């Protein structure tokens, strides 16, 4: 139809749709290259797995206006300093267990998952683990038998016993420690971490 205005024509919108989509896709791919580089383990934002040999803090940064993870001095997990391969192997065991046991259909990690149980982003730093010297023992006990060691803080919602082996539980703890060192742009905000030497 010759009377159709150009901005109402099928042809115009077809071309627009194609170009807009192509442009946005190219921008996304470009940003993805950059982001993938910045979230590879061992980068500034996502630390190497050997970070489990270190103490991890979550401290206010006035310049950024948010809390951020700060990597402190040596504090090996379970008192055992691991090299890069061993650290990765332990953390990887944790990740495989977290997936195989379906933890994210009850919990959120980095805020994604299910809402039936606490967010685990900073679980390593949670004040409920009392104090640094007993934290690892308490975590291990809890994961191996969450029903007997239930807290609930007045609620009777419990984590079921998922029959973790001790190796799996140690892997999970390593995982939680490593994850707490990821720079999440201040999420969760206002989190009050467990007291550690140097605070």
């Amino acid at each position, binding site marked *: 139809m010759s009377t159709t205005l150009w901005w*109402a024509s*099928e042809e115009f*919108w*077809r071309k*627009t*749709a194609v170009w*807009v*989509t192509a442009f*946005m*896709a190219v*921008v*996304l791919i470009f940003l993805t290259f*950059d*982001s993938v580089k*910045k*979230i590879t*383990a061992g980068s500034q934002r996502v630390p190497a*797995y050997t970070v489990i040999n270190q103490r991890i803090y979550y401290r206010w940064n006035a310049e950024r206006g948010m809390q951020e993870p700060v990597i402190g001095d040596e504090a090996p997990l379970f008192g055992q300093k691991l090299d890069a391969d061993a650290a*990765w192997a332990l953390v990887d*065991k944790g990740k*495989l*267990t*977290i997936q*195989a046991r*379906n*933890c994210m*259909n*009850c919990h*959120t*990690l*980095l*805020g*994604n998952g*299910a*809402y*039936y*149980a*606490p*967010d685990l*982003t900073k*679980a390593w730093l*949670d*004040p*409920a683990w009392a104090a640094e010297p007993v934290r690892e023992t308490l975590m291990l006990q809890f994961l191996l038998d969450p029903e007997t060691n239930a*807290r609930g*803080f*007045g*609620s009777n*919602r*419990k984590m*079921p*016993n998922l029959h973790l082996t001790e190796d799996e539980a140690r892997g999970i703890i390593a995982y939680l420690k490593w*994850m707490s060192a990821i*720079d999440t*742009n201040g*999420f*969760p*905000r*206002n*989190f009050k971490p467990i007291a550690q030497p140097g605070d």
Partner: protein
Amino acid sequence: MQPGVIDSRNLSPGQRVAVKYFIAALVLFLAQVVFGLIIGLQYLMPDLFLGSLDFSTARMVHINAMIVWMLFGFIGSIYWLVEEEAGVSLVGQWLANLIFWVFSIAVSVVVVVYLFVQYGPGEHSSLWLINEGREYIEAPRWADIGIVVCMLAFFYNIAATFMKGKWSGISGVLVLDLVALAGLYLAGMFYSTNISMDQYWWWWVIHLWVEATWEVLVGCIMAWGLIKTIGAKRKIVTTWLYIEVALMFGSGILGLGHHYFWIGTPEYWLTVGGFFSALEPVPLVAMVVHAIYDAGVHRFKSGNHPALAWLIAHAFGNFFGAGVWGFMHTLPQINLYTHGTQWSASHGHLAFFGAYATINIAVFYLAIQKWRGNVWMSAGMPGNGWKWKWSLALLNLGMIGMTMALLISGYEQSFVERALGGSTWSAYFQAQQTAWFVQGMFWRQVFGYIFAIGTVLLIWDLLTVGRGEHRPQAQLEEVMTA
């Protein structure tokens, strides 16, 4: 052809495949609702099935049943319309039937393993055989590969049929969109130790499905549906479809960034994600305008009242569930506190139901009408059509009620756990026990039961609507002049 009697000779070959998918979809929809009620109840009675059917297992079935029934509904819808759009019959009919059975049996096996094996040791073999532990795409890797093969065969069938027949604007968009939809699934098929990397790609599947490719797919179905139900003009509908694609992909692709605020990704996503996702409601407004305007021009007369009603429910549900409820928490300044709370559940329910359950139900009604020999489904159905009207009312009331209840719980959780308590373990439980949060969980369950009654009524109606009715379908010209 005798109106009122179910007879497969009323259907074209592709449509015979389609109704198989629709039946399977309805079974899974019912399963979704049953498991939804179980996990809703576990919030109120935490000891229910503890250790035998844990929340995690039941929830996985709830959301997986949803993903699969909706995909089945979409696949069925495409088989339904492909021959009419292409003007030839389906190229590989036996192939289409074969894929249906392979797909359905695979889904059944996956569900049986979910329910009876539930979880495995922390090894790769568990992810290959039992479940991958990644929300929505928990299906084990063997099933992923199976799904990809099925999708490829399906895609071949559809593309080849259009190639043999003729192309249209709608079918062109549809086929390109299917390529993107299937390709994105690949992004969810690998394992990474690194949780940031894991979630980066996981969101490619989830977000770029529901906020880009699925939206465009239902845009195509809607465009075709408007031509079918009210006789809208093809040229106008196609132009609108292009506009919607431009707006939806223009905002939704980079809108992906609203999931990259807090997962370790760089700070520029706060700006990019916040800005583009805030624009995502624009195409959804356009869709409402389009649907209502077109239906209005045709004075809401149609040969299939239930289908038209559900198409209108789709337009509004999409706008409110995705557009309004999504916008409410999409800016990083707000999402910092609402992230991962019952807000997300509130939005997730209204959006999936409003955008995708509705349009599938509309197509089910179009299908049953034709299957029964183009039976009358306009005004003055037997019993005044009480079943479809009540199920429409109960499903929508149930969903809106659940959404509102979840929103109140979500507010409470955001304030008490996130803002005040700083999201610790104890703050989490403090929020879960506030009176308003608990009331929200209670009312969600009440409205869940209402929704469930609506579901049963819907299935009953689809099984019986038009039975014993002898009048043929109202012709659009007739209604127009009536």
